[in-house]
């Protein structure tokens, strides 16, 4: 058969590799900054963009979508061409993909620093950027499938199965979770509310971990690990079983982020059991990786690429074993809302994603520049700094999480809470310091790598178009010995796409459809009323400043939480919350029932100087809320959007809402005057106080007396 000559496109890979290094360092440094704010609040600088609540989403988005995202594309663009024996489908699309993604990253960072956020973790980006992501993802998809279709290899390799599953699932997750109603260029409200929003969000959040941080990287592992070790993949059967089991089961596990919340119990249980069943499929990937190294362990000692890959795969195994354990209710009762979760995700992020990316970079750059690595010793130093960094990062946080949780749950023998919330925070500050040290060590390692790779680039000469040859695909494919039934689909990428979509659609559908349609899942509470216009403004500020990143709004049915915060949260309380604000971490106390707990003047002083009201607090100051006015022109639009989403404001309320807003704001300002505080009613702090004072109050009016309900009849009840 005639052999065809063609060229692999290395240029796009090169650009993605550069982007990985740049965004990786940026994302990690922002993370370090945010971690320092946990024990040294002055680093927030009293400036909105550098405050923790905004730095943290910048950090998470940068490391997930910029660092790992570019890492995925770098690895896919390199391996896909070689596995398909074909150049990428279109150079133009590659270019659009690369620059489009970088623009999205820049836009994401700027808007997040500006405070434009949807308030849903890892999906914080506002609607114009969501649309841009969708478009770029489609471009990537066309390029991906175009290349697969014009391949010169009869079957598609397991790495590509993972790429296909990644593509289709991320598309589904992104579109479903980003359903939002815009009210301006950079402001929108989630279409879902309360419990439903929480379910969709964590279905997304959990599977962003699965299909953005895991499956594409498993694909990379299946290419780069056997290549670097020059060993055959251990078990083809294991590949098949763990691939399908992984993508099918992963999707179901989202509710384990919502154990003990107001989510219906049956959904929580599904989250738990599917997480447990996920252990084996996850470990299948680890075993197939590690067993591939059989007979090559001597190389692992020598070769930096393999060292990084081995630790990456091991961290993957640890994180995917720990994850299911954290999904058991009795473990989750201890770990959730604490730093345990942060430690857990960083074992995955620093170990699995970080080390895998480093390994791939160490592999690719010398290959594409036709040279050898500048210094193996520096790579060795990086390896040890990285490993020590991970340990130093994770161990103190595990300790901090466990300790704090135990302190939260401690009662005296008289039946009183043993510790004030703040005591439990100040107790673990040394662990926070140790964590930052660990993070810094890890970053030093990454800097060494960048230096090493720059030197490598300097000594080599870049091969932009790498010559290759292969025979074109013939209609008849020769079979080798035993023919496995799975070979059928490996020749049919489109069927692969459809079956993957079916596999990942089932779990989400079974959990979401009943939660949306069956009324008994979210029993309504008659005394729960929509927010007033001023409270809506306050809520927007709460979301903008990322309060939900440190404060939960979910009292779980635990003795200590009910004693500390009040009655546990009910599903019916959140039906007007677009988006939900349950949070996932309690660096500060829960706020679900903070309404009426402190006087307005307390909140006023506290937001200006938290340490004055709670000495030792690590909360930053929010001085700009005392200068900025709320945008009252937007109020009618907000009311309109909320009604559109199902919040029962009366028809025509748009025309009256600002009068109500004025009235409530003036009342609060007047009340503050009695406490010798002079504040103009239109300031943001007034709206925020209104919102905080509303939190958790409605339910208190419910059962006690009917008169309370009568006075609360209007939507401006309080």
């Amino acid at each position, binding site marked *: 058969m005639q052999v065809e000559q063609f060229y692999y496109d290395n240029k796009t890979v090169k650009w993605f590799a550069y982007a990985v290094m740049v965004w990786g360092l940026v994302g990690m440094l922002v993370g370090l900054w945010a971690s320092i704010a946990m024990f040294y609040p002055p680093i927030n600088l009293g400036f909105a963009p550098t405050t923790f609540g905004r730095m943290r989403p910048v950090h998470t988005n940068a490391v997930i979508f910029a660092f790992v995202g570019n890492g995925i594309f770098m690895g896919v663009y390199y391996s896909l061409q070689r596995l398909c024996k074909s150049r990428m489908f279109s150079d133009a699309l590659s270019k659009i993909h690369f620059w489009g993604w970088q623009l999205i990253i820049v836009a994401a960072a700027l808007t997040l620093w500006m405070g434009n956020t949807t308030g849903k973790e890892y999906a914080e980006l506002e609607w114009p950027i969501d649309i841009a992501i969708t478009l770029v993802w489609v471009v990537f998809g066309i390029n991906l499938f175009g290349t697969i279709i014009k391949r010169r290899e009869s079957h598609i390799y397991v790495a590509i199965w993972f790429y296909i599953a990644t593509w289709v699932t991320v598309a589904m997750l992104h579109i479903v979770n980003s359903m939002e109603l815009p009210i301006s260029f950079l402001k929108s409200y989630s279409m879902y509310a309360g419990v439903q929003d929480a379910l969709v969000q964590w279905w997304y959040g959990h599977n962003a971990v699965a299909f953005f941080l895991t499956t594409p990287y498993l694909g990379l592992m299946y290419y780069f690990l056997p290549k670097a070790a020059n060993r055959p*993949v251990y078990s083809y059967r294991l590949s098949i079983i763990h691939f399908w089991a992984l993508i099918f089961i992963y999707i179901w596990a989202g509710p384990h982020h919502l154990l003990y919340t107001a989510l219906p119990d049956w959904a*929580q249980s599904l989250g738990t059991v599917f997480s447990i069943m996920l252990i084996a499929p996850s*470990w299948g990937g680890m075993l197939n990786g590690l067993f591939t190294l059989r007979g090559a362990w001597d190389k692992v000692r020598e070769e930096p690429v393999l060292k990084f890959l081995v630790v990456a795969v091991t961290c993957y195994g640890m994180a995917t074993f720990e994850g299911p354990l954290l999904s058991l209710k009795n473990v989750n009762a201890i770990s959730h809302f604490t730093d345990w979760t942060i430690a857990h995700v960083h074992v995955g992020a620093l170990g699995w994603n970080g080390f895998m990316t480093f390994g791939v970079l160490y592999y690719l750059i010398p290959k594409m520049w036709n040279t050898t690595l500048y210094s193996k010793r520096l790579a060795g130093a990086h390896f040890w700094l990285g490993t020590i960094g991970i340990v130093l990062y994770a161990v103190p946080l595990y300790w901090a999480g466990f300790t704090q949780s135990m302190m939260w749950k401690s009662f*005296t023998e*008289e039946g009183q809470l043993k510790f004030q919330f703040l005591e439990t925070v100040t107790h673990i500050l040394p662990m926070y310091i140790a964590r930052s040290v660990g993070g810094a060590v890890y970053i030093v390692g990454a800097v060494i790598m960048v230096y090493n790779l720059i030197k490598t680039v300097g000594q080599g000469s870049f091969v932009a178009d790498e010559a290759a040859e292969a025979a074109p695909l013939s209609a008849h494919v020769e079979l080798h010995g035993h023919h496995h039934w799975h070979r059928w689909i490996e020749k049919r990428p489109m069927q692969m796409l459809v079956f993957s979509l079916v596999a990942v659609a089932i779990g989400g559908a079974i959990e979401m459809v009943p939660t949306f349609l069956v009324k008994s899942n979210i029993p309504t509470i008659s005394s729960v009323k929509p927010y007033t216009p001023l409270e809506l403004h306050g809520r927007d500020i709460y979301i903008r400043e990322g309060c939900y990143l440190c404060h939960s709004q979910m009292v779980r049915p635990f003795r200590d939480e009910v004693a500390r915060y009040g009655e546990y949260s009910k599903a019916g309380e959140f039906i007007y919350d677009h988006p939900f604000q349950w949070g996932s971490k309690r660096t500060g106390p829960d706020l679900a029932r903070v309404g009426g707990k402190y006087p307005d*003047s307390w909140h006023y002083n506290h937001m200006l100087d938290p340490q004055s009201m709670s000495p030792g607090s690590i909360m930053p100051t929010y001085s700009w809320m005392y200068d900025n006015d709320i945008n009252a022109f937007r109020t009618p639009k907000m009311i309109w959007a909320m009604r559109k989403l199902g919040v029962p404001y009366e028809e025509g309320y748009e025309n009256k809402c600002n009068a109500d807003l004025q009235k409530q704001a003036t009342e609060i300002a007047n009340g503050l005057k009695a406490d010798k505080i002079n504040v103009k009613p239109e300031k943001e702090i007034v709206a925020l106080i209104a919102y905080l004072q509303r939190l958790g109050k409605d339910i208190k009016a419910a059962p006690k007396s009917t008169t309370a309900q009568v006075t609360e009849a209007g939507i401006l009840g309080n």
Partner: protein
Amino acid sequence: MRTICRTSFLTLFLSIICAVSANAQAPAPSSMSNSFVVLMVTIIGFLALIIALLAYVLVNAASIKVENELKEKAANLGKTTLVLLIGAVLLVSTSAYAQSGEAASNISTTVSEATYYTLASVAVLELGIILTMLLMLRSVISVNKPATAADADAVVSKAPTVSWWDKINSFKPIQQEADIDLGHNYDGIRELDNRLPPWWLYGFYCCILFAVIYLWRFHVAESAPLSKEEYEIAVADAEVAKAAYLEKSANNVDENTVKLLTDEASLAPARKIFETTCAACHNKNGSGSVGPNLTDDYWLHGGSIQDVFKTLKYGWPEKGMKSWKDDYSPMQLAQLASFVKSLRGTNPPSPKAPQGVLYQEAGVKPDSAAAPKKDSTVVTSTK
């Protein structure tokens, strides 16, 4: 020989049971209701079962070996095994006593750190024992092998040794890899057709079984408590424990029985609480800021020791005063109320204007001039 082995095995097993039951019973009943403790005890019990099984296998293997060796008139190794076994028995039994002693001194209402570490260390100890026994078993079996196969052609002495690791993964020797090469070639990557690691596969089945049982228990049989039931159980248990404690303690103070305390031993801890908690709203010296002035004679909610205690205990949430009964014990609240009362007449600088109504000390008649002259007599009524 066999009887000695049997006895040692029995002792071993019994001592493990001892260890487990000592742990299971000591923190009861309070800790046993804690699901974490239950889980840990289950794990410990499960591990103990494995130890027992292993011990049985080991003892049998050892006795066979000993008999073989007796035939060869070399019982030395058998003795060592026995010594090792007895050592293990001693180790476990001593640890059992240590555990029971520790656990007894550690009766706590929730999972205290001590309970946690005790349970964890027992589990780790058991894992250690299992590992040791596996190693012993391996040595017993592996020494046996060449003895029986010694007469066979010793030419294959270089043949690949099949370790337990190879076995549990059902590894095919690398030398025979070509047999299972599937002939796939993706950019030079080949694929083998190795079997699924058996432990992985059965682990997967176990997880699925777990899932079925879990869903069955919680949602079909409804024999396990859901979140809300779990909460109610926890609160009920806590109430019982609290009542039992208060019964015996002097802490049983409420708004009807509270008495003004004046001794420094009572006021000093209250002062500390006041400075850390109350000062945020009432100022360090009680002169008031967000909250009212506590040093004058005017009270919004009554100025008697009983009233102040009540205010502290239940709060006036709508006015911004939270309830402190979940934060401080009745005794602490009594001390705090007494401390607040002791602030009267301290005349701090720049006090907040009086709020509420004038309160006359009950015990003290107005003529006794206990009420200090106030620079302000304005009474602001509250909203």
